[in-house]
Structures are given as C-alpha cells and as structure tokens.
C-alpha cells in the first residue's frame, strides 16, 4: 500500500490491532479481578465450600471463562513481543510462537474443564 506519491507502507497492519487488544484485554482482566475480590469478600469466611461456591453460579463461570480467554489473548501478544525482541532466527521464532499459541489454547481448554467440573 502506498501513501501519497512516494511513501510505501509495508507490513501486515496487525500491529495497531494487537496493541489495542492488549489494552482491552488488560481492562477486562482488571475488571474481573475486582469482581472476584468483591465475591471473595462477600463469601467470607473462605473455606472450600465458600470458595468453590463462587464459581458455581453460571454468570461467574462465564465471567471467569471470558477472563481466561482475555488472559490467553493478552499473554499471546506479550509473549509474541518477547520472542520478536530477543529471538532473531526466523525459524526458531516461528516455532516458539506456534508453541505459545498451542500452549495457550491447551490452557484455555483446561480452564474450561476445571470450571465446568465445579
């Protein structure tokens, strides 16, 4: 894509989107932590039943799942930044990035299993 007569803009143009997603997911995670803190305070004294009870409500399950999804996406962008900054050989970097995505998807599925067992 060229801008004006001379300037050639290159790249896949996903930089801004990822930057924005990292911030949006950060806000989601902050809000979830506040929600969880409120639930924990109102469930005091915290023993096993009270703690597990927090995650029994379908609303809280869905909120927690959204938080885990936001966490996975947020972590993907952060880890991708780290790999891009420090790992120069393209092949190794792509392998690490692929591994990161697969690992985060695995953790997300695991989180669903954990949540829906309660």
């Amino acid at each position: 894509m060229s801008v004006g007569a001379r300037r050639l803009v290159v790249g896949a143009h996903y930089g801004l989107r990822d930057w924005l997603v990292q911030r949006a997911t950060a806000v989601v995670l902050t809000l979830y932590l506040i929600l969880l803190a409120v639930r924990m305070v109102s469930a005091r004294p915290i023993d096993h039943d009270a703690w597990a009870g927090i995650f029994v409500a379908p609303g809280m399950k869905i909120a927690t799942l959204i938080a885990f999804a936001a966490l996975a996406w947020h972590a993907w962008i952060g880890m991708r930044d780290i790999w891009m900054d420090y790992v120069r050989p393209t092949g190794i970097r792509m392998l690490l990035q692929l591994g990161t995505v697969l690992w985060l998807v695995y953790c997300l599925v695991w989180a669903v299993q954990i949540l829906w067992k309660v």
Partner: protein
Amino acid sequence: MSARRVIRNISIADLVRYRLPVPGVLSILHRISGALMFVLLPVALGLFDLSLRSQGYEQLRQLSGAWWVKFVMAALAWALLHHLLAGLRYLLLDLDLGVDRAWSRRSSWIVFALSLPPAAWVALSIFGVL
C-alpha cells in the same frame, strides 16, 4: 558542562553498569513479571483445579507446606501485583496522562510503593514469618 558519554547498542556485559532510570526498571520488571506468569500458568491452573475439588482442597493445604509451592505462590503474588499496577500506569500513559519526565518517574515510584509492601506482606505470610 562535561560531555556525557552516549551509550548506543549496548552489549550484554554493559547491562551491569548501565544505570536504568526508574521507569526503565519498572518496564523491564513488567516484562519479566508477565513472562513469569506465562511460565507459571500451568502451576496456577493446577492449584486452581485442586482448590475447587472437595478432596483437593485438603491436598492443597498439605501441598502448600512445600517450600517450592510457597515460593511459586509468593512469586505469583508479586508478579500479579507489579504487572497489574505497572499496566494501569501504562493505560494512563496511553491516555497522555503523566507523560512528562517528572511525572513518569513519580508514577513509577508510586507503582513500586503500592506493589512491593503488599507483595512482601503476602510472601512473609506465606512463609509463616508474619
């Protein structure tokens, strides 16, 4: 005024004597705490899983007696606190709040003042000092 040495493209060995300003320290710790939480994610999920099972809760109580579990939990507590507070500071910076040098240094100190004492308190409680 004496000429200041310009440091560019520093090597790894230079890192030791490179005096990073406070916002720089906050920044690299933000990255380290994020990477640490990524690495410890399976441990955190495993502990979360145990905590929600009825027999697992008791297992977790016993497990949390192990020094490495204590260490992991203390590290997670610090990483979360630092990453959260430093991240909120970045959100404010993105909104053009506190961008000038004086305020960016001040807000970095504020982040450390808010994150380190609670993290120390959590760590000391976990290790049974408090």
